[in-house]
């Protein structure tokens, strides 16, 4: 069988329909099939990434309609990087939550189908070369995310999901509006074609479309002040889903934003806007994180703050900065999901999920506490863990751009980050008093997942060259806009 990017989309959709039927045969299949899908994702990622060594990109048209008329999926080193990362995190989440709701199979079936759709939707956002198709995938992500936020019955989950829905529907409306205006002006929906025809759009309309996209995708990318939904959603969704939100879904939002800014539009001065928005997002989120009593909300705010840094890096826009941004995304996906995984176990039997309840947990759960501490060390950028290198490159990019004030601000905020993370570590390792929480021993598969992530963080920290080539290719592919346009439009010429 010829492997192509279409499999990323077709297979999980097929599986999602089949799972309810298959689980009639055997209940365990509802758990196994999504895992097989994720495993297959990993296989195609490896195969396609290898194929990229010989050709600049893989562009696949759907249903024989070639671009710019049909929908196409584009697998460039940049999208390949994100897709592989998403597949990897998705697979780890599946392994981690294999025993989710062990006794109850109906909720588990729902959970796994939704998880699969969430990951598929995010991958779709990254792969598609068609702006309307991107919108469709965004909706798939949003709907699965709403349902997962309201997964647990109860008032809080429903409320969080409703807030998310409310803000999320704004996002959909604005993006759709932007696409409509674009279509009326250019008559095409293909992103490469749009980039070529962008000069036909009058300037004022261009700006309006840009702002609509910015706000719409900004909601998914957790930009301030559009991120009110995020802390609620992170804290109400099942534990591992926090890792999916931070590691996969946000990356999709950022990707969409970046694709629009870098490929479709050629506006000058966009960088400054991104830097300003990223800076505000980062500062407010980290300050909010400092004041949280709830561990998951704290992690959520920290995640928003990190996305702020990524936005700043994309705003600076030099080669080093984009490299740093992608490295930051990789690290954030690995480290934050590890933090969410370990935090779920630390607070397993807690109803309120407050940091206070963690006191002295290290005595009962030494391994999970160690993993959490490792994650905290890595995410604040202490060497020799992976977070250090991305931070260093980010600062190098800022220094090359002569932004001394920016460096000072980001680093001051990093001090705050250190304080709130180390407070939590202090609580976990405190011997002053002991926790009243009933500890839950981690299952063998979750231990495995956390070990893999922990090892990766240390290995990348000590030997970053392992991943940097990959990231360099990805950032080159993103910067080289004309290459993208040319390849999409020539490769998909009518046969």
């Amino acid at each position, binding site marked *: 069988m010829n492997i192509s990017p279409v499999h990323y989309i077709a297979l999980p959709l097929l599986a999602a329909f089949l799972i309810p039927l298959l689980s009639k045969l055997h209940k365990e299949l509802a758990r196994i099939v999504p895992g097989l899908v994720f495993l297959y994702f990993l296989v195609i990622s490896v195969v396609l990434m290898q194929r990229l060594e010989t050709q600049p990109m893989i562009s696949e048209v759907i249903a024989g309609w070639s671009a710019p008329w049909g929908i196409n999926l584009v697998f460039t080193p940049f999208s390949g990087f994100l897709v592989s990362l998403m597949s990897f995190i998705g697979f780890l989440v599946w392994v981690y939550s294999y025993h989710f709701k062990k006794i109850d199979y109906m909720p588990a079936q729902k959970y796994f189908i939704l998880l699969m759709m969430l990951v598929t939707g995010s991958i779709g956002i990254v792969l598609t070369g068609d702006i309307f198709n991107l919108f469709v995938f965004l909706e798939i992500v949003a709907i699965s995310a709403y349902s997962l936020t309201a997964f647990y019955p109860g008032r809080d989950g429903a409320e969080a999901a409703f807030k998310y829905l409310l803000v999320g529907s704004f996002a959909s409306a604005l993006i759709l509006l932007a696409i409509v205006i674009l279509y009326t002006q250019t008559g095409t929906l293909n992103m490469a074609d749009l980039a070529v025809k962008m000069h036909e759009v009058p300037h004022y309309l261009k700006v309006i479309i840009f702002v609509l996209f910015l*706000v719409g995708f900004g909601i998914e990318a957790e930009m301030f002040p559009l991120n009110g939904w995020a802390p609620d959603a992170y804290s109400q969704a099942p534990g591992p889903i926090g890792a999916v939100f931070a590691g996969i879904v946000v990356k999709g939002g950022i990707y969409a934003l970046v694709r629009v800014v870098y490929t479709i539009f050629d506006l*000058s001065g966009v960088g400054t806007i991104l830097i300003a928005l990223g800076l505000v997002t980062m500062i407010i989120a980290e300050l909010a994180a400092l004041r949280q009593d709830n561990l998951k909300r704290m992690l959520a705010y920290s995640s928003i703050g990190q996305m702020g840094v990524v936005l700043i890096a994309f705003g600076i826009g030099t080669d080093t900065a984009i490299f740093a941004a992608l490295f930051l995304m990789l690290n954030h996906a690995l480290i934050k999901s590890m933090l969410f995984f370990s935090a779920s176990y630390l607070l397993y039997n807690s109803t309120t999920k407050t940091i206070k309840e963690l006191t002295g947990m290290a005595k009962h759960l030494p391994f999970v506490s160690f993993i959490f501490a490792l994650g905290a060390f890595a995410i604040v950028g202490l060497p020799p863990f992976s977070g250090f290198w991305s931070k260093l490159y980010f600062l*190098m990019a800022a220094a*090359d751009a002569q932004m*001394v004030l920016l460096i000072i601000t980001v680093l001051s905020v990093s001090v705050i980050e250190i304080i709130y993370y180390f407070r939590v570590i202090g609580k976990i390792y405190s011997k002053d008093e002991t926790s009243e929480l009933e500890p839950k021993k981690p299952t063998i598969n979750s231990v495995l997942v956390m070990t893999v992530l922990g090892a990766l963080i240390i290995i990348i920290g000590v030997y970053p060259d392992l991943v940097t080539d990959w990231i360099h290719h990805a950032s080159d592919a993103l910067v080289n806009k004309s290459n993208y346009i040319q390849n999409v439009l020539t490769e998909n010429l009518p046969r």
Partner: protein
Amino acid sequence: MNTLALIILIFFSGATLAYLSSLISNKLPGWVALLTTMTGTVLFYMSFQNEQALSFSIIGLNLEWALDNYTILFAHIIFGLGILASLYSVQYMQNKSQQGSFYANFLLSIGSMFGIIISKDFISFFIFWEIMTWSSFLIVVWNGIGFRKNGIWYMAMSAIGAYAMLTAIVLINSEIGTYSLQAFFNAVQENAIDNLMLVSILLLIGFAVKAALMPLHIWAPRAYSNTPASYTSVFSGALSKMGVFGMGLVLIRVFRFSGLQDNFDYALVSQFTSHVLAWLGGITAAIATLYALVQKDAKKLLAYSSIAQLGYIVIGLAIGTKLAVMSALFLAIMHAVFKGALFMAVGAVERQVGTTDMTKISGLIRRMPWTFFVTLVSIIALAGVPPLSGFVGKWMLYEALITNGNFFLVVVVFFSSTAAFLYSYRILFGLFLGQEEDDTAHVKEAPATMVIPMVILALFLIVTGTYPGIVFEPIAHGMEYLGFTDVTWNMTVLSNVWGDSVNLQYVSTTIGVAFMLALIFLTFKGRKGTRGVSTKDISTSGEIPLEHENLTFQLDFFKPFERAAAPLYKRSITKIYEDVANGLEALFDFTRKIYTGNGQTYAIYVVAFLVTLLIVVQNML
């Protein structure tokens, strides 16, 4: 394989091994640590005279490691203290739990200190610097008590310092396009760095945090007094010297020998910075000494004393004349030795008696004679009294300050050294002299493996008191690396610019003879039966004190002094910091007002943001 890389590798894998061995038995990590430091030290001393260099690249950044004379000077401190402290530690930590994580971090911090000094590029310098910070942080919070008070402050202040340094590093890289230290020094020579002053000041802030210079010192008293004594000797003796190491590079290589001294603006700013730093050093010495005076806990006292001593060293480096730098480096080595010995001695008391509270212990002289001897020698060195080596350092510092015209600083240093007599006497008296108490009657001397390292350090102090040349030699070589030429030194003779000279051999012989005579006299006199009295056996104007009334001398030891200096103690810098921190946290609470948790508010935000952006962006693009 390259020896430098091998030593680093030994320490880092030793750390892993120490942790893993604790899974088998809690007793093993101590021996693993001892073995690791021994191997590392032996390797270093076998090869340090050869030219050593190593360079490799990681994600396109060139990292270089090499040995030079300035490095070797600090390597002596690290390995000397490291090996003695790990020998001491085996018995000291004997009955404590979780030795695995303690020793793992112990080895990591020693290894990373060596890494810092051999780094010839900013990236590996910073990486090792941060490893040193977090490994020492993990030892500070190792016992898991009082994390919020001790650990957070240490980590937060270290982060501020480290990030100041990181900012400087990336700025340097953006200007000269490389992280190499040598390239940086060359660029300084050629005046190729535009914001050199900003960069230097940021670097100095980073180093000042580790050297616990006021007002960046607030982490130090708590961190020093909260760590196990076997590590505190390294912490205060060697780790704080990393700040001195860096300051030496910036203040001397960049400020003094930059080749820009003709540039008026540059000279003005660099001299101003040096002066500010010298004064901060003076203030640190004076204030920390005052705080040391009123401490009731011996470890806290030593912690403040460490801060004060580093103040002198900073003064010497900031003045920057040949003599001043020499005295600063001499004092740095001596401080490592006597403070290492003192922390070990207090640790021995802590282990044998169970507390270091000077109001609870007294009269240990007969119980722990060796520990007493070490303490006595160390405080004499600390106070700067002949015939021990502390005198030599102070002598040179005074001379350097006077010849440079810093008379005010002379007064400050003189004041704080005099006050240092008071606290060093207090620690000697508080722990060892005074009445013997019944509840310490069972106390025995510490085990031999703890006594031997302390005694070695004490003997070193005595020998260098007469022959300071032993230490001057590596210092002189180190100073040549920094850029000084014709650094002269004498084995036993101290001379000054006014033509006086002191032969230390005569001094020590005279004092030695006088001491022996006094000892003989006192022994004879004391042979007549002495009557043992209890603490309560004193005149109390006819009133018999109650059982719970504490009548020991140690309580309110310097009461009149404390009363006189009371206004000084009212304003605590720590309190100011805490108030600021709490104030900021309360201020940050406004974020709660933004994230109301109300869906409608969030929807309004979206609309408002959209409208604002439309208006702003329309005008911008």
